[in-house]
């Protein structure tokens, strides 16, 4: 039997619901932990980041305006489609992170479960984080959480799927739109997640996935006036403070990176939901 020629893949970005090449035309080789070629990925440039922010801003009105129930359904549907790609995710996680097949399977299971867990949060946020305020006056005061806007996410560099889902899903559950810079060395599960999102019900532009170098793209996103928050979890070592300083120019919400990449299998709690919400308080008089 003759050996079949391998189909060598060159993946593209996921921006505004489409899969464009990088504007710069650049690609880079993705290898497994032992250095064997896996695929080519697009190396996003600052102009790709710019286009992604424009797409995320355009998508924000519809996504943030959807009912919490509807948002939950859409996110749950993403988990369904991920389940259908289970084997592919397992292969990519195993190759990219150098895990045994059983540990890779556990990581993919945890990632899908994490997505479902966050999908369930969409219609509970307002009850848990908002409510009627006790006020000593003749009026009512209510507080409700509202999405912050366009969130730039520097995804974890090591955990390529569970880590990515753990930072991306809460951003979406709150009603924000996202521009994600994926793990630089392990981008393939993110690329597949893009294909999942494109074939699910998430509107184009709500999630934009840029494969490439967080050190190159981070400053442009941190400084961008039309980005409302930035998650620095995957920021290159030693660069987080610089990025936080750049983000201060447009008073962004900033999520600081932990000193070391955390254990993503632990119970996440609400710590990744609250940073991307703004509290809106309203009052109205008590009828007399």
């Amino acid at each position, binding site marked *: 039997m003759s050996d079949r020629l391998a189909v060598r893949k060159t993946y593209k970005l996921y921006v505004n619901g489409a899969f464009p090449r990088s504007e710069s035309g650049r690609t880079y080789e993705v290898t497994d932990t032992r250095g064997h070629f896996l695929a080519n990925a697009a190396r996003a440039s600052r102009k790709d980041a710019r286009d992604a922010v424009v797409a995320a*801003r355009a998508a924000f009105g519809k996504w943030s305006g959807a009912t919490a129930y509807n948002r939950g359904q859409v996110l749950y549907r993403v988990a369904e489609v991920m389940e259908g790609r289970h084997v592919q995710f397992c292969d990519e996680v195993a190759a990219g992170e150098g895990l045994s097949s059983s540990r890779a399977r556990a990581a993919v299971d945890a990632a899908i479960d994490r997505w479902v867990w966050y999908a369930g949060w969409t219609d509970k946020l307002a009850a848990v984080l908002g409510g009627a305020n006790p006020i000593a006056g003749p009026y009512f005061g209510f507080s409700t959480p509202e999405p912050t806007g366009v969130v730039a996410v520097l995804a974890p560099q090591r955990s390529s799927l569970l880590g990515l889902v753990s930072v991306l899903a809460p951003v979406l559950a709150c009603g924000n739109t996202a521009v994600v810079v994926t793990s630089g060395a392990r981008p393939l599960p993110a690329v597949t997640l893009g294909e999942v999102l494109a074939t699910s019900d998430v509107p184009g532009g709500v999630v934009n996935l840029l494969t490439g170098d967080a050190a190159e793209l981070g400053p*442009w996103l941190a*400084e961008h006036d039309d980005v409302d928050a930035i998650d620095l979890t995957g920021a290159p070592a030693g660069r987080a403070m610089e990025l936080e300083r750049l983000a201060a120019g447009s008073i962004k919400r900033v999520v600081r990176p932990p000193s070391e990449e955390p254990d993503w299998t632990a119970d996440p709690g609400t710590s990744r939901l609250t940073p991307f919400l703004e509290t809106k308080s309203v009052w109205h008089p008590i009828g007399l």
Partner: protein
Amino acid sequence: MTHLLDPQAAAADAAPRREPPPPFGDATRSEAAFRAFLHGLPGVDQVGAEARVGVLGTRSIKTTAKAWAIDTAISMVDLTTLEGADTPGKVRSLAAKARQPDPTDPSTPRVAAVCVYGDLAGVAREALTGTGIHVAAVATAFPSGRASRAVKLADVRDAVANGADEIDMVIDRGAFLAGRYLDVFDEIVAVKEACGEAHLKVILETGELVTLDNVRRASWLAMLAGGDFIKTSTGKVSPAATLPVCLVMMEAVRDFRAATGRQVGVKPAGGIRTTKDAVKHLVLVNEVAGPDWLSPDWFRFGASSLLNDLLLQRQKLRTGHYSGPDHVSVD
């Protein structure tokens, strides 16, 4: 034709036809002669025109050249609002934006003009007095042009009386497409006369003229009749200003000046929304007509959302980081 509204129009109808400038003085001596002249203009190679703008569109304009292009484009903008829902308040806020497009940077140039409907020209004039910014008003039953000539002329006189110093008229596309070129010519001449001191921009509405050959004919017709500017579109019909159309019009004004010595301006309007589009037009102006046209006196952009994109790009160049729509005014 009846002239219930305007007895002067009847006199104008009876007056001898104004002649085009030499050497085309006898082109309008009869309907047949005028048709022969317009149809005798060289045909436009549509594929060639598209290829030419395609090549010119790939020019890379960066750094200092880009900064110059952005400032030049801002100074060429006719900031436009032509909605049924326009109010005096909206026109005043547009005028404020025209005077100072970017309040965070006083070095931003002013725009060339504010373009409104004739009844609001007075509001714009009052808000812009002393700034040197022109007040342009659309007239002649804009955007369709479907009214009798007396109504159109009354519309023009009203806009001028309200304070407009530039009039944007629409040609009678029905007459043009039916081949009644002299009717269109006479109407432009009559409107030009009604304008008095005001500049006349002639809107060809190229989206309804179908072919580039027709665009060239309409351009020549408008220039022969005395238009100071030829303008692509009303902005109410799609497609509006496209690069091939602009190319043909730039060629027309270039050839017209070479033949008669009179320079006519060009104003693409409608559909130009991004800085990249604007820069492509500037490249076209420079390469086709020449640098003489690279001034607000001879080239304008009819636009509303374009200005915000120009300002965002200007902020990007100034600060080194990307700006966002929260940093320019909503209009």
